[in-house]
């Protein structure tokens, strides 16, 4: 069957229902080979469910998908031979040593004996676990565990890799190291689909897929999403109290979007919005102290917030 040409992952109207609840709703996705794709979305958006369907762990309710050229529904065995998967929950054997875990997964994937020693060495050095081959895995700290899990997932050199929140709960330095590994793999033409909660990680991806309530709401490169998706200019506004300011601004003509970001507001203003000084005056009429709005470069998070709220309005009116 085909292992060459065609997209690495293709999903058409992929849908998963749990009873009445639709976790993934007619999702279309096309991922070219050698890309790093970020799956971004809030809790319960359907990221894991999508990944689990693509891996053949869950049967789609409807729609179809193919991975590495193999149909997920009809050729699940072939799909499994060609993918690596790291689940959201850490899932190596804590009561086995580093080496025993690698042996086990190497054996399950039937890595050839002559390749195995080399690959085990590679996985151990990739995880930075030289000299700790005989440590029980549950004694390792988060970052090492995650890198070892990645090492186990690529022992059989899969062309497509699914990583479900691989860096959640890992300290920033280890997260950065993990992303270095992801890029090393991508340089070897591995297609990698990573889900994450961290917006900053999305910037490391070639493509970002924004998922909310089971639907794909936007997809593109980080700069595409930043540049074209925002309908207006983004301003940062220091003011207090934040909640009151949010209420006062919403509904003002030209204010496309206002959202709380940490200790300040991010406001998207259209052409016809009041000038900065006017906004400040408007707020002070509501008893709100504010600085002058300052124009900033939008982050993916800004885009995401706007897209999600737009989607919500759309759903409410629909």
């Amino acid at each position, binding site marked *: 069957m085909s292992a060459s040409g065609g997209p690495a992952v293709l999903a058409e109207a992929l849908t998963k229902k749990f009873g009445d609840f639709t976790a993934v709703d007619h999702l279309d996705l096309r991922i070219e080979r050698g890309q790093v794709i970020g799956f971004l979305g809030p809790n319960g958006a359907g990221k894991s469910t999508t990944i689990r369907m693509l*891996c*053949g*762990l*869950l*049967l789609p309710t409807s729609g179809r998908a193919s991975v590495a050229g193999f149909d997920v529904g009809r050729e699940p*065995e072939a799909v*499994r*031979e060609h*993918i690596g*998967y790291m*689940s959201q*929950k*850490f*899932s*190596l*054997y*804590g*009561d*086995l040593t580093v080496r*025993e875990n690698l*042996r*086990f*997964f190497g*054996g*399950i*994937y*039937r890595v050839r004996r002559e390749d195995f020693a080399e690959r085990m060495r590679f996985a151990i050095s990739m995880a930075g676990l030289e000299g700790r081959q005989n440590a029980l895995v549950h004694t390792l700290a988060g970052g090492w565990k995650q890198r070892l899990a990645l090492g186990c997932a690529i022992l059989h050199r899969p062309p497509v890799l699914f990583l479900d929140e691989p860096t959640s709960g890992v300290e920033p330095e280890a997260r950065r190291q993990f992303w270095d590994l992801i890029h090393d793999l991508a340089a070897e033409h591995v297609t990698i689909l990573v889900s994450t909660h961290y917006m900053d990680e999305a910037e490391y991806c070639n493509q970002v897929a924004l998922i909310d309530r089971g639907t794909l709401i936007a997809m593109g490169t980080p700069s595409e999403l930043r540049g074209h998706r925002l309908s207006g200019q983004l301003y940062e506004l220091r003011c207090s109290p934040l909640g009151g300011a949010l209420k006062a601004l919403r509904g003002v003509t030209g204010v496309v979007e206002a959202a709380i970001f940490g200790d300040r507001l991010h406001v998207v203003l259209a052409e016809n919005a009041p000038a900065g000084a006017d906004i400040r005056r408007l707020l002070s009429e509501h008893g709100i102290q504010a600085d002058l709005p300052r124009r900033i470069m939008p982050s993916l998070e800004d885009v995401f917030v706007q897209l999600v709220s737009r989607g919500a309005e759309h759903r409410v009116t629909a």
Partner: protein
Amino acid sequence: MFGRLSVMLFKEFIQLRRDRWMMFRLIVPLFIQMVVFGYAATFTVHHVATAVLDLDQSQASRSLISHFVATSRFDIVDMARNQRQITRDIVHDRAVVAIVIHAGFSQDLESGRAAPLQVIVDGTNSNTALIALGYLSQITSQFSAEWAARAISLNVSAVRPETGIRLEPLPWFNEGLNERWFFIPGVIGTLTLLQVVSLTAFAVVREREVGTLEQIMVSPIRPFEFILGKTVPFFLIGFGDIALVTAFGLLWFRVPFVGDPLVMLGGSSLFLMAAVGMGLLLSTFSRTQQQAFALNFFLLNPFFILSGFAFPIAAMPRFLQWFTMINPLRYFLVVIRAVFLKGVGVDVLWPQLLALAALAGVMLTVSVLRFRKSLE
């Protein structure tokens, strides 16, 4: 296939070996059960606290009382003087049995009439009470037989020799009616069932809970490779259990083994297959180890009680007897006791072996099907 299976088995045994509680869980219950059933579990009753009210105060009544004392079955704790005292003894738990010899007891005997003897037992512990009553009637009938014999020798015309039926017990296969011989082979079955079912269920549920099951399921492993990897180790452990308890029973408790070891081997294999099937089935009904534990507890108890391990199946109500038909332990106990004590072979035990084979087949098929579905 063999490659992946051996990888699974290797991993499973490392995990078992590394589990510090495992050896404890495997060995300690085994010894506890052996000691409990080897020493403590007994149907025999000794030294029953007994109160006596002798209203006859004759030579005959004293002779009867001395018959009771002569056996170690009854200890006379109170020679009461009236009925009230007797009642008090029973109510206050000073005595379990009270014997009342009415005035006129010896006269009745002399004149060849039936001499009534009143016996009161505390039925709170019905088992002890029944057994004590059994001894009582044995001792009294022995007494009356002796009395009759003496009467003949004295040529007392009024007394006819007793012509009733006398029961002479002649137990086969376990001449001493040794309860240990009855229980030790039974322990083999119950203990093995408990350990194999729970170990299998826990091993699977733990992987599900921890998430490693999902990690394995995205690999190209085939379901039956995984299932074999998860059941074969516990099948082997079950054999170890059986061998250990058997050795202990033979060498320590001196239970005889007169049968064919091959029949035992065959029966054990079928039984263990049914047991791992049950464990696997149980695992498909539990998401967490706690659930598995609870299920295990609630399910296995009826299996023990309705197996004939301690309580005879023939005495159970009909619908419970029907249930015992699907209990592999029931058949295995018959096989194992027969092999130990009777020495009979396949020619006699084939119905049990067939039932075990059928149960093993059904349990394994159902559990594998359900298990494969549960992976979705």
